[in-house]
C-alpha cells in the first residue's frame, strides 16, 4: 500500500547553527498580526554566546544576546492591553528574563536559599585551609553537595594546589546559595483561550515548583493542564526518575519510573513519558501503566501534537537516528518523518499562518519546518501490524514451576477434571438460582408527595435494556415490595405486581403511606424489586421520607 506523504517541506536551513534543547523552542504571535514567529533560545557554542533567535517566515527576524545559558522559553500573555502582545519569558540560571517587543522588559530573581548555619560558621571561623577543607568535606557528607553554597562547592572540587589562590581571590565574596531554574511551563489563569492571561510555573534546583510546592527531588520536565484559578494538574518528572503529579496546593509521587525520563506530556486523563531505554509509556492519572511501546532508537525529545480542527491528540517523538514518529494516544505509530541527523528539539503548533506546523531542530544545528497537509490521514499503519503478527513469537523458556505443574496435571488428571467439572456445575447452579442483579436492567425512580401525615409514594419502574435489536427483551414477573418500620408508617398496598415491562417505557405505581408516629418523626422506607419465586432481590431503593406534619 502506498502511503501519501503527509508533510510538506516548507523550509529547511541546514546552516542555521542552532543548538538547543527541547524546552527552548516556542512560537507566538509576537507582533499581534496573526503571523506567528518562531522563538528559539540558542545555547550557543563555546565561542558564540547564547542567543534568543526569532524567525519570521523563512528568515531570521532578530536576535537578542542572552546573559547566560537558557533552560527554557515560554511565551505568554501577562496583561490585558490591546493589541494583545505576548511576552517571552526565558529562564536562565536564577533569573527569569521577560522580553516584550523583543526588548528586555524586566527580570525576576528567584529568592536566594537559606545557607546552612554550620557552613556559615565554618567560613567565618576557619584558621587554615586544611581544616576548612576537612570541615566542609564532613559537612558535605552530612547534608549533601547540593545544600552547600556555590563557593564551598567550588572549593571542594579544586585540587590542593589551586585552593589557596581560590581562597585569596574570593576572600570578600559573600556566601550565597542561588536557586536555579530547571524547567518552565505556563498555566492559563482563568480562561482557556489562546490569548488568555497566564502564569508561569517554575521548577527549580531546590526541588520546588512555584506555585509553592516542595518536591522530594529536582524537577526536570514539567507539563501542565487546566486553569490556575479553577483546577489544574501538573506533571513533572524528576532527575532520579520519579513521576509526580500535582494539583492545587499539593503534590504527590505517582510512581517511580524504571529508567530516567527524557520527556513528559501531560494530557487530560493520561500522561505520556518517554524513557531513556527507548520506550514510550502511557500512564493514567491514577498511575497505572496503560501501554508501553518500544521505539527503534533512543528518544531525544517528546512533544504534544494537538490537531484542533480534527480534535486529534498525538505525541511526536524525536529519535536519535533522525526519525520523528507520531503516536496516537493508544500507542499506534501513524507516521514517521525522516531526517538525517539526531533530533534535538521538536515543536508542533502554529507558525506563520499555518496552525499545524512541525518545527524540528537537529543536533547538527539545522532547522526544518514541515507543514501538515490538509489531506493528511492519521489512521494507524495496518501494514506494520500485519508484519508483527508474522514475526516469530518469542516464547520464554520452560520454567521448573511450569514443568512441575505439567507433571502434576498429568499424574492427577482425573481429579483435576473432576474439580473443573465441579466448578462449572457450581457456576451453573449459582447462575440459575441466584441471578445477579446486573442481569436485569431495571431503573427505579421514586417521589414522595404530600406533607403528612398522609403521603403518596409514586414509583416509576422502567426497563432500560436496549430498545431494539437482538438484546431487546421485555421483563416479566416482577413485583415491588415495601419494607418499613411499623412504629412509624403504615403502607398500603405492601406489595405491587408489576406488569410486563417493555424497554424504555416507564410504568408508574402509587402507594399510600400513613405516618403513625405521634411526633411526626421521619424514617426510611425500602422498596425492593423482586422477581417472583426468587429469594434474591433485584434492586433495592431507599426512600428517605420527610418529617410529617402533626395533626392536633
Amino acid at each position, binding site marked *: 500500500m502506498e502511503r501519501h506523504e503527509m508533510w*510538506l*517541506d*516548507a*523550509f529547511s536551513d541546514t546552516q542555521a547553527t542552532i543548538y538547543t534543547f527541547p524546552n527552548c523552542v516556542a512560537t507566538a504571535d509576537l507582533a499581534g498580526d*496573526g503571523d506567528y514567529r518562531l522563538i528559539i533560545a540558542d545555547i550557543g557554542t563555546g565561542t558564540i554566546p547564547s542567543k534568543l533567535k526569532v524567525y519570521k*517566515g*523563512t*528568515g531570521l527576524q532578530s536576535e537578542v544576546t542572552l546573559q547566560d545559558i537558557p533552560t527554557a522559553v515560554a511565551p505568554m500573555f501577562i496583561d490585558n492591553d490591546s493589541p494583545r502582545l505576548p511576552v517571552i519569558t526565558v529562564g536562565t540560571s536564577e533569573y527569569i528574563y521577560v522580553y516584550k517587543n523583543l526588548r528586555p522588559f524586566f527580570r525576576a530573581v528567584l529568592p536566594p536559599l537559606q545557607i546552612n548555619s554550620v557552613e556559615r560558621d565554618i567560613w567565618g571561623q576557619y584558621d587554615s585551609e586544611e581544616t576548612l577543607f576537612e570541615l566542609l568535606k564532613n559537612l558535605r557528607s552530612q547534608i549533601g553537595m547540593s545544600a552547600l553554597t556555590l563557593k564551598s562547592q567550588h572549593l571542594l572540587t579544586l585540587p590542593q594546589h589551586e585552593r589557596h589562590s581560590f581562597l585569596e581571590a574570593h576572600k570578600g565574596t559573600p556566601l550565597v546559595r542561588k536557586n536555579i531554574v530547571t524547567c518552565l511551563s505556563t498555566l492559563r489563569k482563568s480562561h482557556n483561550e489562546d490569548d488568555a492571561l497566564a502564569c508561569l510555573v517554575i521548577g527549580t534546583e531546590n526541588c520546588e515548583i512555584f506555585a509553592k510546592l516542595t518536591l522530594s527531588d529536582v524537577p526536570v520536565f514539567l507539563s501542565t493542564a487546566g486553569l490556575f484559578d479553577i483546577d489544574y494538574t501538573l506533571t513533572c518528572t524528576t532527575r532520579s526518575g520519579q513521576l509526580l503529579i500535582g494539583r492545587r496546593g499539593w503534590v504527590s509521587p505517582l510512581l517511580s519510573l524504571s529508567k530516567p525520563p527524557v520527556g513528559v506530556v501531560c494530557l487530560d486523563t493520561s500522561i505520556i513519558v518517554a524513557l531513556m531505554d527507548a520506550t514510550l509509556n502511557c500512564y493514567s492519572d491514577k498511575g497505572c501503566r496503560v501501554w508501553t511501546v518500544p521505539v527503534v532508537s533512543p528518544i531525544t525529545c517528546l512533544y504534544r501534537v494537538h490537531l484542533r*480542527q480534527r480534535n486529534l491528540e498525538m505525541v511526536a517523538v524525536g529519535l536519535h537516528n533522525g526519525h520523528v514518529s507520531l503516536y496516537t494516544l493508544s500507542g499506534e505509530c501513524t507516521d514517521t518523518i525522516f531526517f538525517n541527523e539526531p533530533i534535538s528539539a521538536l515543536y508542533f503548533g502554529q*507558525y*506563520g*499562518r*499555518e*496552525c*499545524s506546523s512541525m518545527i524540528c531542530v537537529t543536533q547538527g544545528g539545522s532547522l526544518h*519546518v514541515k*507543514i501538515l*497537509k*490538509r*489531506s493528511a490521514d492519521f489512521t494507524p499503519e495496518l501494514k506494520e501490524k500485519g508484519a508483527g503478527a508474522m514475526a516469530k513469537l518469542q516464547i520464554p523458556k520452560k520454567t521448573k514451576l511450569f514443568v512441575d505443574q505439567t507433571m502434576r496435571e498429568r499424574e492427577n488428571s482425573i481429579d483435576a477434571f473432576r474439580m473443573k467439572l465441579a466448578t462449572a456445575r457450581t457456576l451453573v447452579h449459582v447462575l440459575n438460582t441466584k441471578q445477579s442483579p446486573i442481569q436485569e436492567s431495571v431503573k427505579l425512580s421514586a417521589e414522595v408527595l404530600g406533607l403528612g401525615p398522609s403521603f403518596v409514594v409514586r414509583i416509576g419502574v422502567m426497563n432500560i435494556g436496549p430498545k431494539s435489536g437482538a438484546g431487546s427483551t421485555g421483563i416479566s414477573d416482577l413485583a415491588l415490595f415495601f419494607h418499613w418500620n411499623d412504629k412509624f408508617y403504615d403502607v398500603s398496598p405492601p406489595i405491587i405486581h408489576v406488569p410486563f415491562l417493555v424497554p424504555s417505557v416507564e410504568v408508574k405505581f402509587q402507594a399510600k403511606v400513613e405516618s403513625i408516629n405521634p411526633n411526626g418523626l421521619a424514617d426510611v422506607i425500602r422498596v425492593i424489586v423482586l422477581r417472583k419465586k426468587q429469594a434474591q432481590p433485584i434492586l433495592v431503593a431507599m426512600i428517605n421520607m420527610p418529617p410529617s406534619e402533626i395533626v392536633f
Partner: protein
Amino acid sequence: MGIFDKLAGLLGLRRREVNVLVVGLDNSGKSTLLNHFKSEDSKSSEIVPTIGFNVEKFQNKNVGFTAFDMSGQGRYRSLWEHYYRDCQGIIFVIDSSDKLRFVVAKDELDTLLQHPDIANRRIPVLFFANKMDVKEAMSAVKISAALGLDRISNKPWHICASNAITGEGLQEGVEWLTGQIWEYVDRRR
C-alpha cells in the same frame, strides 16, 4: 459562430455571464482584490477574514463576472471543490511575501488541478502574485517556478504580479481572463 454574433460582440451588444472562482490561502488578499473591482460606494473600507464564501459581481468588457470569493482558511478549503463544476475561470491568489507557505499553496493548487471537475476541462487559470509591494515579496517568475506552473499543459494560465490595495496589475490580469473566457466560450459552441 454567425456573422451577427461577431458583429454584436464587436459592437458591445452581446453580454456574457460567467462564474469565476477566487481561491488561495488565507490572508493572500482575495477579498481585497475583489473589493477593488466594486463600485466606489459599495467598497468596504475594512476587509475581515472571509468565513465560508462571499459572492461579488463586477463587469469587464461585456463580461459580467460572478466571483465566488472563497475563504482560504484551512477549515473552509474543503468547500472549494463544490464550486469547481460550475465555474468558467479560476483566479488563484498567492501571497508573494509568504515564502513559508508556497508549499501549501502548491499543494492546494495540485489538489485543485487534479480534481475530476477541473482536470479534463480547458479552463483558464489566472494567478495573482499578490502583495508585490511588500519588501520580502518574490517576483512572479520565481513564484511560477516555485509552484511548478510550467507543468500545467492542458489549461491556459497567466501569472501577473499585483497589489490588491492600490489595484496595480489587477486590470491586466482580468483582461487576460476576459479574453480567455471569450475564447473558451466560443470554442464550446
